[in-house]
C-alpha cells in the first residue's frame, strides 16, 4: 500500500482523546438551565384494550408541568401510527406489547415525574396475547390490528378479498426449477433453525434533551444514527415542517442499528413544546431492555440438495421473523439480497415473512435478518460437507459465486472476494494445524452482507493556515470521522493533524443518510472525495499563475501545491488560502461534493473458531477465533480490526448466552445480570485477516465493513460445538443446558 501516505495507516481515532479523558459529550451529559424531567408511563400488559385513561391526578400534582397521551400527538392525527416508523407508539385504543408507552410526564424533578407516573390511572381489559409466530400466522388467529393487511405499508390492498393478517410482509423468490433441482441431488438435507430476540446491548441507554424556542423551533440533543432521518421522523410526530426541528449531534455510546429508533426524543420534544421549558429524558437499563427494540427472533427452514461431488443443485428456504407488536421494521426486505448470494445454486425458492406478535417490536441490528439466516444456511452447509466427507472450506470454495453471476434477487454480482477469503482462511488453518485435545472442535462458516448505499453531502474549507475543515452531517458510530479525515489528508497531501472534521447539526451540515447498512464510509467517501477534488481544482486555479505552470500540472503534497515537472516550484496551501481572501482574491476556497445511488459493494467474511466443551456441564469455552474478511481496501486497519473483533464478540454472545426470556409476552431478563453479554473472560484474542479485493465502485476500492463480520459467527460456533461433541444445535442460544441435553440424548441413542 505504498501508494498512499495516510490511507491504509493505523491511525488512532480522532475522538479517542476526548473519550479517554471523559470530556466527550453524550446525550445524557447535556444540561440546560431550568430543565424539566420526563418519564414514561408504560403498559404492564402485552395485549389489552384501554378502557379508561385518566391523567387528572397526575396533572394536578405540584411540580408536574405537562402530561401527554396519544391524543396530544399531532402526528397521529395525520397518518396511521403504523406508518410512523421507529417512533414511540403511545397507545391509543389498545396496547400491543408490554412496556408500550401510554403517557408521558414532565415535572420539575425526576422524583415528581416518577410520582406522577404512578398517579396515572389506566384501566385495561386484557386480551389473550399472541406470542408465537407460527400461531400468529394461522388464518384463524385474530389479527392484532383490524386494519393491517400483508404488505400494507408497501402498498395498501386493492384486492377486495384481502383479509387483515398478522403477516406484515411476505416476499417470495423463485429461480429455475426447484423440483428438478432436487431430483438431480444425491443428498438432500432439511432442517429448521430457531433464534430468540436479542438486544444490541449498547452500553449507553437512550437519553434526549429538547428545548423549544420562542419561534417554535425545536432543538434536540439525542443519540441517533442519522440526524436528518431523525429530524424528518420527529417533525412528522410533532406535526412541524422538518426545518422547524434541529438535531444536534452528540457522541453515541454504541448503536449497532439500535439507535435509529427514537424512543424518547419525539416525546421529549413534545413536552418541551407544551411546557416552553427544556426537558431531559433518560431510560433505565430495564426500560432499554423492555422497550429498546431488539433484533427479531426467527424460525428458518432450509432444504439443500447436492450431488455426490458436492455441487449444490437446489435450495429452498422459509424465513419467519418475529416483528413483535408493530409491523414497521421489515426484515424480509433484506432476505432477497442476502440469501444464497455467495453460492452458485441454479434452482432456488425463498419465502420470507415478518409476523406480528404481542412482544416488544423489533428493529435492525448489524446486518439485519442475516445472522439469523446464515445461522441456518451455514449450519446446513456444515452438515452437508460432513455428510459428503468434504472439507467445509473446500465445499464452499467449490460452490462460490463469481463476478457476473446473478443473485437470487436478480442482481449481477460485482467482484467480491469469496474465493480469496476462503482460501486465505484455508491457508491460515493449514499453518495453524489441526486442533488437538479432547472435547475440542473447530467450526467454520461464511457470512455475506450485501450492504447499502445512501446519499451524502460534504463541504471542504481550505483555511488560511493551510489546514482543511470538512463539514459532514453523519454521526460517528464506527470511527467514520477518523477514516474520512484520512481520506482528506491523503487527497490534500497534508498530515492528519491539519484536518478537522465537523459533524454539523441539521441546520448547518449537508444532508446525510443515516449511518446504517455499513454504508457510511463507503458512500460518504465519494462525497468527500468529490468535495476534495472541487477544492483542489480551485487551489490549482489560484496556484497556476503564481507558479507559472498549467493548472493540470499541479499536484498536492507536504502541504504544498507543487508543479509535477519541477518540485522546486511550489506554494504552500496556507499562502493560497490567504490569497483567496485578499482584495483581488477569488473568495474562500470551499469544495463541495455529493453522492447518491451508488451500487453497494458486498462483502464476505470467513470465520474459524476452536471451542472446548465441558461434556458434563455443557459449558463452552471459546479457545481461539479468526476471521478473514474482504474489506476492499482498509483505510484504517486498526479500526477495521476493532469492528471485526467487536462483531465477533457480539456474535459469540448471541450464539451462546444472549436471548430474551418472555413470560406471557413480558421480558423477564431486564438486567445485565440476566441478559448476559460476554465479558473479557468469555472471549479470546480475535485474529483478523484483512483481505483486500478492491471493489470497482468504492473510492480506493472500499467495501462495506462493519456488519459483515457479525453474520457468520453464529453458525461458526454451532459448527465448532458439533465438531467437539457430535451434537447439532439448531436453536439459539446454545446454552450449557441445551448442549448437555444434546449430549445426553446422543448418549442414549
Amino acid at each position, binding site marked *: 500500500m505504498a501508494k498512499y501516505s495516510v490511507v491504509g495507516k493505523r491511525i488512532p481515532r480522532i475522538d479517542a482523546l476526548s473519550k479517554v479523558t471523559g470530556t466527550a459529550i453524550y446525550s445524557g451529559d447535556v444540561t440546560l438551565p431550568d430543565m424539566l424531567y420526563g418519564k414514561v408511563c408504560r403498559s404492564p400488559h402485552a395485549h389489552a384494550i384501554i378502557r379508561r385513561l385518566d391523567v387528572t391526578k397526575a396533572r394536578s400534582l405540584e411540580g408536574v408541568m405537562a402530561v401527554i397521551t396519544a391524543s396530544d400527538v399531532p402526528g397521529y392525527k395525520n397518518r396511521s401510527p403504523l406508518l410512523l416508523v421507529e417512533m414511540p407508539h403511545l397507545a391509543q385504543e389498545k396496547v400491543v406489547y408490554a412496556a408500550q408507552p401510554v403517557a408521558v410526564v414532565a415535572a420539575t424533578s425526576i422524583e415528581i415525574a416518577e410520582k406522577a407516573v404512578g398517579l396515572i390511572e389506566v384501566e385495561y381489559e386484557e386480551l389473550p396475547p399472541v406470542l408465537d409466530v407460527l400461531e400468529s400466522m394461522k388464518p384463524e388467529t385474530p389479527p392484532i390490528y383490524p386494519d393491517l393487511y400483508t404488505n400494507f405499508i408497501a402498498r395498501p390492498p386493492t384486492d377486495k378479498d384481502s383479509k387483515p393478517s398478522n403477516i406484515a410482509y411476505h416476499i417470495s423468490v423463485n429461480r429455475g426449477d426447484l423440483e428438478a433441482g432436487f431430483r438431480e441431488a444425491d443428498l438432500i438435507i432439511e432442517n429448521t433453525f430457531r433464534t430468540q430476540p436479542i438486544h444490541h446491548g449498547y452500553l449507553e441507554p437512550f437519553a434526549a434533551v429538547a428545548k423549544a424556542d420562542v419561534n417554535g423551533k425545536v432543538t434536540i440533543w439525542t443519540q441517533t444514527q442519522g440526524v436528518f432521518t431523525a429530524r424528518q421522523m420527529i417533525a412528522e410526530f410533532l406535526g412541524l415542517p422538518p426545518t422547524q426541528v434541529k438535531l444536534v449531534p452528540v457522541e453515541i455510546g454504541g448503536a449497532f442499528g439500535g439507535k435509529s429508533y427514537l424512543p424518547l426524543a419525539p416525546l421529549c420534544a413534545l413536552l418541551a413544546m407544551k411546557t416552553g421549558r427544556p426537558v431531559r429524558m433518560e431510560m433505565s437499563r430495564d426500560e432499554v431492555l423492555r422497550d429498546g427494540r431488539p433484533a427479531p427472533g426467527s424460525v428458518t427452514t432450509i432444504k439443500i440438495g447436492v450431488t455426490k461431488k458436492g455441487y449444490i443443485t437446489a435450495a429452498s428456504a422459509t424465513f419467519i421473523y418475529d416483528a413483535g407488536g408493530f409491523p414497521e421494521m421489515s426484515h424480509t426486505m433484506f432476505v432477497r439480497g442476502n440469501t444464497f448470494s455467495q453460492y452458485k445454486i441454479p434452482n432456488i425458492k425463498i419465502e420470507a415473512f415478518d409476523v406480528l406478535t404481542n412482544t416488544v417490536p423489533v428493529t435492525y441490528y448489524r446486518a439485519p435478518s442475516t445472522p439469523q439466516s446464515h445461522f441456518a444456511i451455514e449450519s446446513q452447509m456444515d452438515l452437508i460437507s460432513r455428510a459428503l466427507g468434504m472439507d467445509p472450506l473446500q465445499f464452499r470454495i467449490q460452490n462460490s459465486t463469481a463476478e457476473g453471476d446473478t443473485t437470487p434477487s436478480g442482481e449481477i454480482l460485482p467482484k467480491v472476494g469469496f474465493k480469496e477469503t476462503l482460501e486465505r482462511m484455508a491457508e491460515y488453518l493449514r499453518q495453524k494445524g489441526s486442533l488437538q485435545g479432547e472435547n475440542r472442535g473447530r467450526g467454520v462458516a461464511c457470512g455475506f452482507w450485501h450492504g447499502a448505499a445512501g446519499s451524502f453531502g460534504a463541504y471542504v474549507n481550505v483555511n488560511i493556515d493551510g489546514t482543511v475543515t470538512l463539514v459532514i452531517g453523519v454521526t460517528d458510530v464506527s470511527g467514520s470521522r477518523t477514516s474520512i479525515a484520512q481520506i482528506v489528508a491523503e487527497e490534500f497531501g497534508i498530515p492528519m493533524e491539519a484536518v478537522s472534521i465537523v459533524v454539523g447539526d441539521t441546520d448547518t451540515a449537508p444532508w446525510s443518510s443515516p449511518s446504517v447498512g455499513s454504508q457510511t464510509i463507503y458512500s460518504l467517501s465519494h462525497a468527500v472525495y468529490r468535495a476534495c477534488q472541487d477544492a483542489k481544482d480551485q487551489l490549482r486555479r489560484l496556484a497556476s499563475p503564481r507558479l507559472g505552470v498549467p493548472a493540470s500540472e499541479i499536484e498536492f503534497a507536504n502541504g504544498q501545491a507543487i508543479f509535477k515537472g519541477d518540485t522546486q516550484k511550489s506554494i504552500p496551501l496556507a499562502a493560497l488560502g490567504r490569497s483567496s481572501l485578499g482584495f483581488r482574491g477569488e473568495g474562500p476556497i470551499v469544495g463541495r461534493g455529493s453522492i447518491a445511488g451508488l451500487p453497494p459493494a458486498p462483502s464476505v467474511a470467513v470465520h474459524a473458531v476452536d471451542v472446548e466443551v465441558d461434556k458434563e456441564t455443557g459449558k463452552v469455552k471459546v479457545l481461539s477465533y479468526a476471521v478473514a474478511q474482504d474489506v476492499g481496501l482498509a483505510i484504517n486497519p486498526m479500526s477495521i480490526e476493532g469492528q471485526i473483533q467487536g462483531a465477533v464478540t457480539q456474535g459469540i454472545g448471541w450464539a451462546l448466552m444472549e436471548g430474551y426470556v418472555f413470560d406471557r409476552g413480558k421480558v423477564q431478563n431486564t438486567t445485565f*445480570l440476566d441478559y448476559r453479554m460476554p465479558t473479557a473472560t468469555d472471549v479470546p484474542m480475535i485474529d483478523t485477516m484483512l483481505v483486500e479485493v478492491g471493489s470497482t465502485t468504492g473510492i480506493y476500492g472500499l467495501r462495506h465493513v462493519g456488519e459483515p463480520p457479525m453474520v457468520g459467527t453464529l453458525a461458526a460456533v454451532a459448527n465448532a460445538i458439533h465438531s467437539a461433541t457430535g451434537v447439532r444445535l439448531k436453536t439459539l442460544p446454545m446454552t450449557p*443446558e441445551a448442549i448437555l441435553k444434546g449430549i445426553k440424548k446422543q448418549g442414549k441413542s
Partner: protein
Amino acid sequence: MTSTRSIGKFEYKKPGSLRTTLRILSNKGADARILAGGTDLIPQIKQGQISPSLVLDVKNVPELNRLDWNEDRGLRIGAAVPLSKLLTFVAISERYSILAQACSVIGSMQIRNRGTIGGNICNAAPSADSAPALLCLGARAIVASKNGNRKINLDDFFMAPGKTSIGADELLVEIEVPTPPAHSAGCYMRHTTREEMDIAVAGVASFLTIAPRSKKLKEVRIALGAVAPTPLRVHGAEALLIGKSVTERIIEEVAEEAAEEAKPISDIRASAEYRRELVKVLTRRTLWKSCEMLGIEIQR
C-alpha cells in the same frame, strides 16, 4: 439547583460504635436495614423491592472491621470487611483456600471491593457463593443485640430466600471460622453461563478430613448453593462417605445422593433438572479435587 435525589425515603446513619448501633437497632430495628458493602442492598432499594426508613451504615463500627486469625480461636471476619481485603489476608489464602476460592468468584473486582462476606450471608440468596464454603468450614455467626451476644451455627442461619435467623434488633458482628483440622482439604466449584460476573446456577463445596494412617474419611462436609431455598448441607450424602476409603464408585453414589437431596427450582437461569445434574457433576468434581489435595489415591 440539582436534579439528584435519594434512592429512597430513608434516614442515613453511620454510627461509630457497636453500642450506638445496637441501641438504634433496638428502637428502630424493624424499619432499618444494615448497610455494609451495599452491593445487594442498594439495588434492592433502587428497584423498590424494599423501602427501609433507616439505613444504618456499619462501616465505622470497629468490631465489624476486625480481621484476625489464630490457631486456637480460628478466623474472625468482621461483618463489614470487604471481600477484596479478605482475599489478601494471608491466613485465609494459606489455611482457608476453599473460602478464598468461593469469595474470589463473587461479582466483579468492583463488587468485591465493596461487598462483604457478612452481606453475602445476610442477604441469604440461595446462590450466595460464600455460604457452601462457610457451611463446610463449620462457621458460626456472632450476632449482637442490646441484650448481649449469641452464636448461630451457619447450619441454622439460613431460613428462606432473603431470610435469616437474625432478629430485627440484632446485628451480625462477625463470622467465626474454626481453624480447619490437620489432614483436611476442600474446594468450591460452581457453574455459571459466563466465566465471571455471574450468579451461580449451582455451586458445591466439599470438605474432607482424613485419618492420616488409614486414609479413611473422618469427617465429610458437602454443601450446596443455588439448588434449594437456602444453601444447605447434604447430610445423607456426607454420611455415605464417613469412615470409608474413597473409591470411584462411592464418589458416584455420593454425587447421586447429593443430587437427590437438592431441591432445585426452574427459573430463567436454568431448569431444576439441569441444576440437579450440575449438583451431581460438581459434587463429584469437588470430591475428586479434595482427594487430590489430600494426596489420597481414589480406588477405581
